[in-house]
């Protein structure tokens, strides 16, 4: 498998490290007392930290180009065929501004 890094061009997958699903977004958690949030928030946080879908098909994943430009990438990959449909830089890569939507 080769991944087309948007900065470096196409490289062998040995240069990359896999993190996992890029979909989960960190929920806003307001600490009420000693770091414990409301139960709905706890539920959402538990989901964010532990629960993952086992996708058979198109999936959005984080890959790290550690053997190259050291950028985090978001790769659209089909887990059945390893076909990669898109690769783009994760929010905040380089000195680019972080989009507000990516933070919330």
């Amino acid at each position, binding site marked *: 498998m080769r991944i087309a890094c948007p*900065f*470096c*061009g196409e*490289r*062998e997958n*040995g*240069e990359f490290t896999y993190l996992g699903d890029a979909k989960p977004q960190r929920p806003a958690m307001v600490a009420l007392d000693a770091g414990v949030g409301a139960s709905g928030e706890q539920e959402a946080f538990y989901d964010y930290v532990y629960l993952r879908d086992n996708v058979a098909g198109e999936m959005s994943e984080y890959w790290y180009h*550690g*053997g*190259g*430009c*050291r*950028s985090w990438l978001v790769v659209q990959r089909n887990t059945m065929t390893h076909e990669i449909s898109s690769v783009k*830089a994760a929010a905040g*890569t*380089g*000195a*680019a*501004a*972080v989009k507000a939507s990516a933070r919330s």
Partner: protein
Amino acid sequence: MAEFVWHAVSPLQHSFTPGRMGETADAAGVRMAEIRNFNLVQIFARRGQWSAVAKAAKAHFGVEAPTRPQAVSGKAGVLLWSGPDQLSALTARRGDEIRPLDALRDRFAGIASLSDQSDGRCLLRISGARARDMLAKVSSVDLDAAVFPVGAAAATAIDHTAANLWREADAADGSPVFKLLVFSSFADSLWDTLVDAAAEYGIEVESPAGL
């Protein structure tokens, strides 16, 4: 109290002696030399400050800062792309000028983070008619002249070791010249790998040179 005097030594000092290695029947197909006495500063632009950093780099080094995988050579040295909105400035070390950040601190204040990597990297020059064949054995980057022209650079991994590889102006005999920048602690092992890869072409190990 005894005073310590620190002497920088090359990580490759025990690895080679200048002269022929590998196949010796014909002229050496690969020439390798260690480049010593350089200063290397990593420049990381802060959020949203890339254009200010590029301007400051141009003012200081006299060449355009690369925004894609390129090595831009100028009188002062080489500006090497090392990641999005990052670059490495490679300059010759004159005399005992071992504090390269002093000259850069004011110019990049507030817009970039600087890190002195001068003694953290080892620099090799690889040239010769078979240099490409040798590198093809250890690198997955396509180094064909059509896609990797003079000035092209790659942040890549060779033998699981992170390395910066770039191409400089061809040698007088028309053969390509590559530079390879690698972490000092991996230089010895990578040197052995390169020697193994080049042995069949014949290697001329040249005396260590300056930048």
